[in-house]
């Protein structure tokens, strides 16, 4: 029997970034669902189960931070991770306030990203980062 793959919803308005992320995550054996806008992402988050959400901070139709708050408002929601080009303290605080469990800044390093996602998915669900 095939082991169940962890499902990740990736919301990013940049088509190439979405495509690249899908290739990368599938290479690491995740099941990936893509959305190009916040409303599509919210619809998917409300209708399908996911193990993690990866959000770009800059979305055209709605603030990604609002999307994060909406996802985090659902009891038992999966962790939300921001992947952003904005490395500023204020943006990180904004992400934290919105409920994100991680705020990663681009450019991303393949090895670092894989380790980070693996840690977050396998070790932090229900235990908190402090225990990893």
């Amino acid at each position, binding site marked *: 029997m095939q082991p169940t793959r962890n499902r990740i919803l990736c919301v990013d308005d940049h088509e190439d970034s979405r495509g690249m992320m899908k290739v990368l995550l599938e290479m690491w054996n995740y099941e990936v669902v893509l959305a190009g806008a916040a409303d599509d992402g919210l619809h998917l988050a409300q209708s399908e189960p996911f193990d993690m959400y990866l959000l770009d901070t800059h979305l055209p139709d709605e603030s990604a931070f609002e999307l994060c708050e909406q996802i985090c408002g659902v009891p038992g929601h999966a962790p939300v991770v921001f992947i952003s080009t904005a490395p500023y303290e204020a943006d*990180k605080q904004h*992400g934290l306030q919105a409920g994100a469990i991680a*705020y990663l800044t681009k450019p991303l*390093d393949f090895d670092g990203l894989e*380790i980070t996602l693996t*840690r977050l998915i396998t070790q932090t669900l229900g235990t*908190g980062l402090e225990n990893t």
Partner: protein
Amino acid sequence: MIQETPQADLFKQQMRESLRQETLNSRAVTIAKHDRVYNCGDNDEMVYFSESGQVKLLMLSPEGRECLLAIHTAGDIFGELCLSGLGARLETATAMEETILKQIPCPEFLRV
């Protein structure tokens, strides 16, 4: 979005090797699992070069909620924001497993 090309890999390897050489005489510290390298608010003016292990950088909200900023592994540098003269650390660095780090004071790092 993701910078991973053969040239970037080569550059990364060369940079790590160069740092390894330059930090041969730097002070090495061993950090036990779960121990802090530095805390948010600390003023230690050091750049850290990771020789082994894993270190996570966490930001804490005033309510104590935490947000992961990065996980650093062997060959990575972190804590370099002190080079900007910002002063206090904005995040907390914690070893996720036993970790060996080279501590490089800011002036020395800039000289390298």
